[in-house]
């Protein structure tokens, strides 16, 4: 253990709260996310999971409290952050190949034309190799499968060598094989390279063995802790205000009895933290 001083957490939230109108998604949230920590954000639709990511991305201001990343206030477009969105396919006519998509992650936010191409090409090639996407790098993005696209998304997110990786349901609508490939990519980035990972999901089982801590949002409240501490019948029952059953079987977790979410305002797709 390096004892040269207390480590600065990658993300620090203090007394943070978020509400829309008179509806409070969460409040009084104190949370530190450290380098190399894998945090899963769970909760029903409309509980503010995606908004939590938007706060960290600087796209959504807090209603109260503070949030810092690497000790600085959040800032839109920070190079400290990589972002993997939900899988969404491109229209077949999109004039981009796989490598161009990754290239946008490298310098797509800069003005003007790309004048020096060689350094960018080398960087893109390395990133493609890192995520195992070299074989289809020259295919049009509109023809790639969901799993192939998510590998490119991972490469795109790693382009700035971020300290914090934000993932918004990155496994949604992928087959099991690709779910494993993508989640282990993210896990390696977290535990081998020391990035902090915030992984928003409604289904914890595909990443259960990687998760260090859970942030569970529901009913205007939150709980944090290890999966064993939070994913318990009594904890979730208290949050939902009704009987919720958490069952464990062969290392997998099944939650029964979650009341239907009443709001869908974040455009999340359907499905609660539920059976696999």
């Amino acid at each position, binding site marked *: 253990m390096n004892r040269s001083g207390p480590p600065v957490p990658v993300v620090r939230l203090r007394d943070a709260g978020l509400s829309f109108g008179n509806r409070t998604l969460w409040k009084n949230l104190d949370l530190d996310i450290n380098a190399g920590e894998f945090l899963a954000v769970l909760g029903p639709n409309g509980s503010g999971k995606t908004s939590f990511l938007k706060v960290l991305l600087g796209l959504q201001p807090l209603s109260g409290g503070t949030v810092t990343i690497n000790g600085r206030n959040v800032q839109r477009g*920070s190079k400290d*952050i990589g972002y993997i969105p939900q899988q969404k396919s491109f229209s077949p006519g999109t*004039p981009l190949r796989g490598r161009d998509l990754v290239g946008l992650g490298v310098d797509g936010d800069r003005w003007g034309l790309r004048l020096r191409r060689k350094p960018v090409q080398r960087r893109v090639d390395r990133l493609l190799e890192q995520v195992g996407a070299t074989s289809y790098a020259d295919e049009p993005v509109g023809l790639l499968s969901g799993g192939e696209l998510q590998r490119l998304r991972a490469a795109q997110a790693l382009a700035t060598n971020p300290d914090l990786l934000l993932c918004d349901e990155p496994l949604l609508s992928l087959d099991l094989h690709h779910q494993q490939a993508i989640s282990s990519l993210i896990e390696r980035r977290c535990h081998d390279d020391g990035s902090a990972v915030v992984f928003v999901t409604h289904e914890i089982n595909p990443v259960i063995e990687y998760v260090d801590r859970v942030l569970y949002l529901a009913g205007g409240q939150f709980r944090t802790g290890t999966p064993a501490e939070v994913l318990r019948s009594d904890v979730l029952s208290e949050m939902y205000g009704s009987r919720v059953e958490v069952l464990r079987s062969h290392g997998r977790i099944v939650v029964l009895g979650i009341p239907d979410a009443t709001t869908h305002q974040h455009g999340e797709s359907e499905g609660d933290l539920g059976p696999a």
Partner: protein
Amino acid sequence: MDLRSFFDAVFDFSDYGELLPLVSNSIWAAAILGLVGGLIGTFVLMRDLAFAVHGIAELSFAGASFALLIGVNVVVGSLAGSVAAAVLLAVMGLRARDRNSIIGVIMPFGLGLGILFLGLYEGRSANKFGLLTGQIVAVDTVQLNLLAGVAAVVIAALLFIWRPLTFASADPDLAEARGVPVRVLSVVFMFLLGLSVALSIQVVGALLVLSLLITPAAAALLVTSSPRLVVFLSVLFALASSVGGILLALGGRIPISPYVTTVSFAIYLVCRVIRRLRGGHRHRQLSANTATAA
């Protein structure tokens, strides 16, 4: 009309050498517009704005006919009309579905206004027809300079916002997360699109603007997905259509636009055939299936 007189009307290359210098202004204008159309067309397709281009063109037509009626520069009138329409769309119709209904509302109104102004206009009737279907043979040096100036502004601005605009057009969610000012870019792009539509109207008229702003880029997309090659081919196709159209039209008695639209359509057809011969999507899907099976 028999076949012979049809061909006499459509193609007549006698005195070609003497005609050419007389229309050098028009050829320059066509080249400028081809360049602008080819460049902006790829973004129009990426942003799914083909219908918007059509709507902007009708308002541009209204502006141009109003200018004709009150006796000011037609290019200025058409610029004013299309920029107003484009910015209106940019502000009101951020979502595609809203945008399409707004365009559907604006378009007939613009066309109606234009016809009203033309109905009140008592000058040469060729001028009236030209606004709808193209009139480039009449480009004078003042107009050419105006066209070139506006085109230079559009091209310079496009080059400056090229990368973030590509990012925001193809991948808006991620671009926003990376700090690209997606909304500002969308308004700026609509403004530039308005300028480009107004320019293209001077060549092919309000009804046929799509042949310079959409068809070349759509044809390019059929044969490649490399962003650089798409832009290069799109510009090349647009130039071939606009300049080629004029060169073919010189001797005939009919307006220029059918030549432009036909060349541009022919290029599109050729690209479709090339794509079909290469196997298009099916080839890729087949190789993807074998890859997952392996």
